[in-house]
């Protein structure tokens, strides 16, 4: 598949000490179905790779000299980028991140477990689930070591503290079988 790429050069912003995250997410939000993003930055934007990985983008990053990096974010075959309004959920297993996810097919309460047991249980559960399914898990804190593992396996996630401010709910949507590690 050939992907059309929209260019975004955040090097001037970074050199001025600015924070390009918002511009990047706006550019991603403006992508048409099937389009990718060519990002130019002054370093390898590792956190961004995870963020966009969670939104269904695969990436290839290469150093282009002078310490600068070019990263190509391509929409994964089964996952149109954020903002896409296309396709009913069932036909396309990954309706966009901004769209609705299916009801979780599995629920887990990991609040009484000591770290890293919650992570172990979640990763064991997602291995047994089918692409497109959603797992919902309650935890007593943000599972920050879990997210890179999910990104690496091609899954997407969303998380937030519940209204009580104590329980953290994470939703994991199973991605297509991994096409190679990040």
């Amino acid at each position, binding site marked *: 598949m050939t992907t059309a790429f929209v260019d975004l050069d955040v090097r001037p912003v970074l050199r001025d000490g600015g*924070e390009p995250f918002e511009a990047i997410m706006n550019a991603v939000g403006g992508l048409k179905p099937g389009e990718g993003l060519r990002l130019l930055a002054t370093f390898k934007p*590792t*956190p*961004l790779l*995870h*963020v966009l990985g*969670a*939104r269904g983008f695969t990436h290839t990053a290469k150093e282009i000299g002078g310490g600068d990096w070019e990263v190509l974010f391509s929409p994964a075959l089964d996952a149109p980028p954020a903002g896409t309004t296309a396709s009913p959920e069932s036909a396309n297993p990954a309706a966009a*991140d901004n769209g*609705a*996810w*299916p*009801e*979780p097919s599995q629920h887990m309460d990991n609040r*009484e477990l*000591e*770290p*890293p047991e919650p*992570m*172990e249980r*979640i*990763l*064991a*559960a*997602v*291995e047994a689930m089918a692409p497109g399914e959603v797992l919902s898990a309650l935890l*007593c*804190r*943000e*599972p*920050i*070591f*879990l*997210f*890179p*593992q*999910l*990104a*690496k396996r091609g899954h997407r*996630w*969303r*998380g*937030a503290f519940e209204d009580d401010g*104590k329980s953290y709910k994470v*939703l994991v949507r199973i991605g297509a079988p991994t096409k190679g*590690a990040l």
Partner: protein
Amino acid sequence: MSIEGFCVVAGVTLSRWTMSYFALALLALLSAEGLMATGFGFPAAALEAPETLVLVHVVAIGWLSLLLCGALFQFVPVLIARQLYSDRLPLPTLVCLVAGLLALVCGFLQLAGRVSPDVPCFPAAALLLSLGFALTVWNLGRTLWAARPLSLPAYFVVVGLCALVATVILGVIFALTLGGTTTNATLVDLTAAGLPIHAVAGLGGWLTFTAIGVSYRLLAMFMLAPELEGRTTRGALAFGTVALAVAILGGTVAICHAIGPENRVGIVLTVAGVLGLAALALYGHDIRHLYRERRRRKIELNSRMAGIAVANLAAAAVGLAILAATGLLERYVGAVVLFVGFGWLTGLGLAKLYKIVAFLTWLECYGPVLGKTPTPRVQDLVVEPSADKWFFLYFAAVWAATLALLVEFPPAFRVAAAVMLIATAGIVAQIVRTRLLANVASERRLPAGAQMPRLLVSSPKST
């Protein structure tokens, strides 16, 4: 299903050089204990003797600061759920700090007449250490700045970093004055009278205050206790911050504006001490609450030993207050500093290191294959009963060494220091076994897809 308010968080990966920081830190600790056992520095030499200064800085920079920097590069991102600003800076930072410490030690040995005075050791130390700590503050500061608004434990780290800046500035002034680079009258006054401020900023601000902040989060995490964000925690932060500001800023002003030969540093430090005791009392209250409210009844070695370390801090605070009230502080200040450095900071550091190395090693080795194949648990990487006895021996030796200083009997101090060295070596051996997965049964050690971690460097790719 409602997904309003849900956000995507990138998560935290392994910090590549944290194990190198830990290894060099432990080497510095063993060296310092070895020196103490052979009778180098206090109490055989005076408290202000160059030999004692060598010892103090090998412990404060070589052991405690490297430990704290390595831990912060990994755990500040955990505190605030953000990636570290730069993964490249920790290596040059480490090189600057270690080279700077070696230069500083050489500078002190020049003062003692043990090293030729021709080499400009103090200016080199001032340059390298200020560069190393500036890189630390820059990297952690940018990381924290991007994560505003901060959680309460992160504010302790911010205040700790401010105290680090003050400690380094005073240290650089001392080094340039002692090295003969400057003869400015104010800087000479600061060097002559500023040592207590430098020590309070370093031991009380940078090391203790930062450790307190990190301990709030780590203890809550490992004991399944509720996170504390309440009035007592805010109070500890407020009292501690004001105490440090009074000691550092007030103390400096008192020296620079001294009338005649007398200055008011003593009064300023007393005020700061009272405020600091209030902060420690609130921290003690919080920690007792954490231990009582924990949902995990049976707690691991790291939390048990951290409890002993916190109790030592409480004892040190009470002792400090009694000695100050009875006018005996000057005579026994060496014992207090030893007890704070080894009973509290080193005890807490070793206890947390024991858990952190196990956890990071487990995550690096087994994270990629979790859920796909049976893997050992984190606790399979350690053998707590073996480590337990070394920890108890260590604490007993620290208490004995402190007692020896209080009764002013140096031979007993050297024996106790030798026992501290042996116990620390025992703990280090346990930590190395953990890192090498030596405690995991060989048939379970490396399931398909798992890679053996390297001793001194982590591979961030595996997470």
